[in-house]
């Protein structure tokens, strides 16, 4: 309550103090129209950056970035504020005041509303060949957000454990993967696959591997919603069926932790680092946390590999997407907007931020961090946005079917583990029940099935 009052008061103060500040915006340069280190080096401005990376604020990494930036642009002062509850808090700040600051990770603002709050970087047409994931925050061909970094979905694994189990080539299909887990169980003391069942959200994360099993950029937000029985059995190790079957089989064959109900998220980090865990199914953002875990003695052993499914076209894919995108406040005066533009460009080109965070580079010519070294012949696959007029269809299908794919549907994946362990429901029955839920939802929402 106190905090809420505090926010309210500060919002009121800010509103009253700056209600006369008006947007000029006329001469803010486009993202690609100036050169770093040459233009605007004498610009004097004071800008504020709101970030969700409180960990980097706390350990001083962000101060380091700003200090580097100030070597080139000494007169632009950057104030950084880390916000713990970023997703909600940033929305309150954004809508509550015109002068919330200058740069923030764009929260859940509808795409059509982007231009109300954020300054344009340039056209999608001009930028899409230079930058990855640049269409993440665009509306009608204008880009309003440049990603901070990109994430890919694969598997965190311990190289030493895999080597000790005699696995020389990383598994590419579910069958090879289960065989590898079995080898780990037989030849080492490590837990082959740590599910993180108890944490909950780590189970829901299995949904993000579905695109890899079909190799279709129009899957998650389009074709999947219109598919007839998308969970139907496949025999060639492709499709959503194959993704979840890995979990069921691993559980049924005793290749997961002994007591899955009491897994410990913080505890798993040093465990995989020290070789007590073979692998975990987590996004690339988790890699640096596992590598740098407190109490971990072998950071060099932590590796990252593509998810072991092969799409029907015979290729392996890593589903990937943008992390938070920098948005620039379009309601403050032009000099501040320019300074913010310079800062975002510097973060994108010069800071090495994406590389340091183990992310996919935003500038297409940038370096991929070492963790992607095993992604050689694996393509990064970005999902296209929903077709026009179907923006909320996925949310509706999720709620109606109660499966909540990509949206906190932890329980259904936990159930796979439970049934796999207790053997009281076959995997095909589970998938059939999901198909039924999906068809019923399609029927009650009147979704065209193709």
């Amino acid at each position: 309550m106190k905090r809420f009052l505090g926010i309210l008061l500060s919002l009121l103060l800010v509103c009253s103090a700056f209600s006369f500040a008006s947007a000029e915006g006329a001469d803010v340069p486009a993202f690609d129209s100036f050169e770093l280190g040459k233009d605007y080096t004498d610009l004097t401005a004071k800008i504020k950056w709101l970030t969700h990376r409180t960990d980097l604020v706390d350990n001083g990494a962000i101060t380091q970035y700003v200090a580097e930036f100030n070597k080139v642009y000494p007169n632009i002062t950057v104030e950084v504020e880390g916000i713990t509850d970023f997703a909600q808090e940033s929305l309150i700040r954004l809508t509550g005041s015109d002068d919330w600051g200058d740069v923030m990770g764009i929260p859940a603002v509808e795409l059509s509303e982007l231009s109300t709050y954020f300054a344009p970087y340039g056209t999608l047409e001009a930028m899409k060949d230079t930058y990855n994931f640049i269409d993440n925050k665009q509306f009608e061909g204008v880009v309003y957000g440049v990603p901070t970094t990109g994430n890919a979905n694969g598997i965190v694994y311990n190289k030493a454990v895999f080597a000790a189990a005699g696995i020389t080539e990383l598994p590419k299909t579910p069958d090879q993967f289960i065989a590898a887990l079995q080898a780990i169980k037989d030849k080492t003391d490590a837990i082959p696959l740590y599910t993180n069942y108890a944490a909950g959200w780590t189970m829901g994360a299995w949904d993000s591997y579905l695109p890899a099993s079909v190799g279709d950029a129009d899957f998650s937000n389009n074709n999947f919603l219109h598919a007839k029985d998308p969970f139907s059995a496949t025999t060639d190790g492709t499709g959503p069926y194959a993704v979840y079957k890995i979990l069921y089989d691993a559980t049924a064959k005793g290749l997961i932790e002994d007591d899955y109900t009491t897994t410990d998220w913080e505890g798993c980090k040093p465990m995989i680092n020290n070789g007590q865990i073979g692998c975990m199914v987590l996004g690339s953002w988790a890699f640096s946390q596992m590598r740098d875990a407190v109490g971990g003695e072998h950071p060099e052993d932590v590796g990252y590999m593509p998810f072991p499914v092969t799409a029907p076209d015979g290729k392996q894919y890593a589903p990937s997407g943008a992390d938070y995108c920098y948005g620039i406040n379009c309601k403050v005066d032009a000099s501040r907007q320019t300074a913010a533009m310079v800062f975002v460009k510097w973060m994108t080109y010069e800071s090495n931020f994406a590389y340091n965070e183990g992310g996919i580079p935003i500038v297409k010519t940038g370096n991929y961090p070492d963790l992607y070294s095993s992604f050689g012949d694996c393509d990064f696959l970005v999902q296209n946005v929903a077709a026009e007029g179907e923006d909320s269809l996925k949310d509706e299908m999720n709620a109606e079917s109660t499966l909540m794919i990509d949206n906190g549907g932890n329980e259904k994946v936990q159930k796979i583990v439970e049934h796999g362990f207790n053997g009281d429901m076959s995997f095909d029955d589970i998938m059939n029940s999901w198909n039924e839920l999906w068809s019923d939802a399609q029927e009650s929402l009147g979704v065209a099935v193709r």
Partner: protein
Amino acid sequence: MSSNSGAAALKESGSFRAWLIKPNVQKWLVIITFAIVPVILLLLFIYYPIGKMVEFSLYNMSYTKVKGFVGLKNYIDIFAKPELFQTFRVSLYYMVGAIVQIALALYFATILSFKTKFTGVYKAAMFFPYLVNGIALGFIFKFFYTRGYVLDTVLTAFGIPLESLPYWLRDQSINNWSLVATSLWKYMGQNMVLFSGAIMSVDPTLYEAASIDGANKWHQFRYIILPSISTVLTLNVILSITGSLSAFEPPYVITSMGGNGTATYFIKMHETAHTLHKVGLASAMAVVLITIIILCTIIQKLVFKYAFRNSGTDSAKTKMKRKQFSKGVN
């Protein structure tokens, strides 16, 4: 003109004052002024939201969007979807737990009401768990039940081999009992304090008189303590049973939102509202829960009325006797 109207106003205000200081008006005025604040608060924060909830339950809606009026469809869904209504089966575990809990609380309260050393220490020790936040308690018990941790260590110290111990949370045949035990551990102390408060109000001379008549401790409990605390007992049973219908914290924290067959009705309701964003259905579930709780309370009231009919008249008799006795002494 002006003086006239002034006089009229004066006269009017005079009659108003006269009306105001009438005893009957004064009484009502006092009642209204004292009651208006709590009544407004009650209406605004209890009955208005409940009314809204009943209204929501008739719609198909999410937090941000009302998708249309559906009438009683949500209620039909609750009873038609077995996975929702079946969760009441889990509540049965908590009801059994509640009965054990009350029996234990009554036992300890009675023992501590007789001459015991360190009564205060025991009471404090047993009441303490109630003061611990439910979420924190959940985390404690999560580690308590983890394979090879606290409980297993203690049991192996007593010579039970680890292999013969069950997985307290993984094994679906006992994990609900594990959770019920934590809730019992937390609320038993509170029940006990309520009971011992009631027992303390029993006139100690009755025990003396009873023991002179040759009554042992069991007789004292059965014929003196139990009838005197029947009101508190009824209250405790109602609170525990309704509480067990809405059990939430143990499965939410310890078994990660009711995983592994431990989801109670309350957990399902939470999930329906906050994960699935089916606010209409969740509201209907809440209305059903309220109805069931009210029904349970009425049934219990009736049962207790019947069960304590004999002892109730007993206690009335003893009360009368006591009155006569004390009058006689005076």
